């Protein structure tokens, strides 16, 4: 038994190919990126060594500060929205719709599988004001509001981005949290009811504390995905007007491929990596402290 499952030949044959691809596509390029960040230029124009200049520029470049702020603002708004609305939907599935929730669950989940580009182009039309007033402005018109040019200012465009990405992703969080709620033993809920807990009290004192692990996992998952936002904003309004809604990832892409400055692009990519790592560690630590306390 032992011998059969510790045969070195078998291990190499099974693990080797995957490990090679992983090292070639992920590990080597990560190291390579560090090297790029010390240079300026691109393969087309040639590289020249600049040492730590790219990293110093990260601190001086006002666009970095601005795009970093867009990324953070987006990630915070989105993850709060995803958790709050997702949790409300999950409660709705479990306690109000109960057995008949399958249809609504399936429907709300559908946008999750749609290509981001298609959804972004659709929302671009929903919020358009030309060639005709789009559906959103038409509804506002009924309530007597003047048409709003949603993509003319950063704050309006940001609202559209958040609405679009919530519409696109909320079904996923609702299902994840719903499955978490299903794990709460029925007896716990029943006995709380016998003790007189009901409605908001039941949710606040019993359900939320009991679903804490799945809530925490969802927050980490949401933040990590939201910090990487790229396609939806690129396809909706390309981060405009100007760089008013450009996240770090899009700025990195533009720096590298539009302005052909690979060295600085690599430095921005490292900043993104650092940001994701820091946020994950932060949430993990607060999660651990939470567990030891409780």
């Amino acid at each position, binding site marked *: 038994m032992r011998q*059969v*499952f*510790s045969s070195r030949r*078998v*291990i190499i044959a*099974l693990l080797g*190919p*995957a*490990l090679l*691809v*992983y090292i*070639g*596509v*992920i*590990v*080597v*390029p*990560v190291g390579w*990126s560090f090297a*790029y960040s010390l240079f300026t230029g691109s*393969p087309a124009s040639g590289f020249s060594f600049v040492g730590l200049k790219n990293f110093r520029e990260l601190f001086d470049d006002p666009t970095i500060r601005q795009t970093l702020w867009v990324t953070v603002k987006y990630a915070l708004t989105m993850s709060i929205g995803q958790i709050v609305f997702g949790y409300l939907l999950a409660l709705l599935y479990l*306690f*109000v*719709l*109960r057995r008949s929730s399958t249809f*609504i669950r399936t*429907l*709300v989940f*559908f946008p999750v*599988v*749609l*290509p*981001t*580009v*298609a959804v972004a*182009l*659709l*929302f671009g*039309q929903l919020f358009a004001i030309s060639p*005709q007033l*789009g559906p959103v402005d*038409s509804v506002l018109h009924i309530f007597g509001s003047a048409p709003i040019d949603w993509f003319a200012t950063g704050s309006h465009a940001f609202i559209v981005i958040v609405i679009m990405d919530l*519409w696109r992703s909320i079904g*996923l969080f609702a*299902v*994840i949290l719903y*499955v*978490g709620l299903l794990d709460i033993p029925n007896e716990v809920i029943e006995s709380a*009811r016998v003790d007189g807990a*009901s*409605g908001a009290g039941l949710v606040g004192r019993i359900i939320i504390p009991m679903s804490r692990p799945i809530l925490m996992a969802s927050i980490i*998952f949401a933040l990590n995905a939201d910090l990487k936002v*790229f*396609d939806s904003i690129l*396809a909706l309004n390309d981060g405009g007007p100007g760089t008013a809604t450009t996240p770090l*990832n899009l700025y990195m*892409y533009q720096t590298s491929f539009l302005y052909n400055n690979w060295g600085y692009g690599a430095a*921005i*990519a490292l900043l993104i*990596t650092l940001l994701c790592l820091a946020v994950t560690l932060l949430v993990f630590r607060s999660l651990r402290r939470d567990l030891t306390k409780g």
Partner: protein
Amino acid sequence: MALTNIDVLPASLAKGKAREAPRRLRRAEISRRTATRALIALILVVEIYPLFWLVSSSLKSETAFVTQPLWDLPTSLDFNNYSTAWSTAQLGTDALNSITVTLSSVVAILVLGSCAAFALGVMVWRGRAWALLFIVGGLMVPAQLILLPLFEIYFKIGVNDTLLPMVITYIGEGLPLTVFLMATYFRSVPQELFEACVLDGGGAFRCFFSVGLPLVRNGMFTVGMLMFFSVFNDLLVALTFNTKPSLSTVQVGLLNFDGQYGQVAYGPLLAAISIVILAMLVLYLALNKQIMRGISAGAVKG
């Protein structure tokens, strides 16, 4: 909300107000039902109306779209937009590219991933925990960090004018999660089954193919679906390695569709989005039970 009706009943009975209870209950019940129905109606409108508007507008002619009130349904079904979209946007080529890239990446991810997962989850050797950690660590690497070097590597080995860069990149990106999930599935297979296989005279490879793989089939299907949707819907990698129009995937094609004309052709654009969304709807309806089950399994484990 519905929770309350269960405890209202015994409480009021206990107070001896049995006769009043039903009427009060009924009124509360009615307002509660109305609230629930309003909420469901709201959800239906928010989810369905954008898609309904999209499809109905795509069936209007350009002039009807601009001049008619938005709420009007198309008076006649005008499929011109669809034929224009299909021919000018080369959606056919794009779809073929997307399917080729997605299927070959997903198959390769599953084959490489489950072999590696078996070596890391079932085989016994020193250092396997570190090897697993090394691969799972790849989950922390954002795609932005590896794109630039990969671009240069693909150029140097001369594959930059093919679909290969996309396929290779997707495989590398998909492996960490696949290996992690598959190793978990392999570990949940009872050890006795592998022992029995060895007693029957099987080698490690035979135990992998005839005992391990069939037992993790459902998990493998779930991972495959997860990978399918994330590869098919990806834009960043597809855009980066899109060196010429004939290599566009559906996502890249849609994105360029937007700015291809001096003036945006709304009808064909809406038709192109409709085609993509309707195709995904068919796929989703066929798979949605498995998708839901897969998410449940993943969420419980996570």
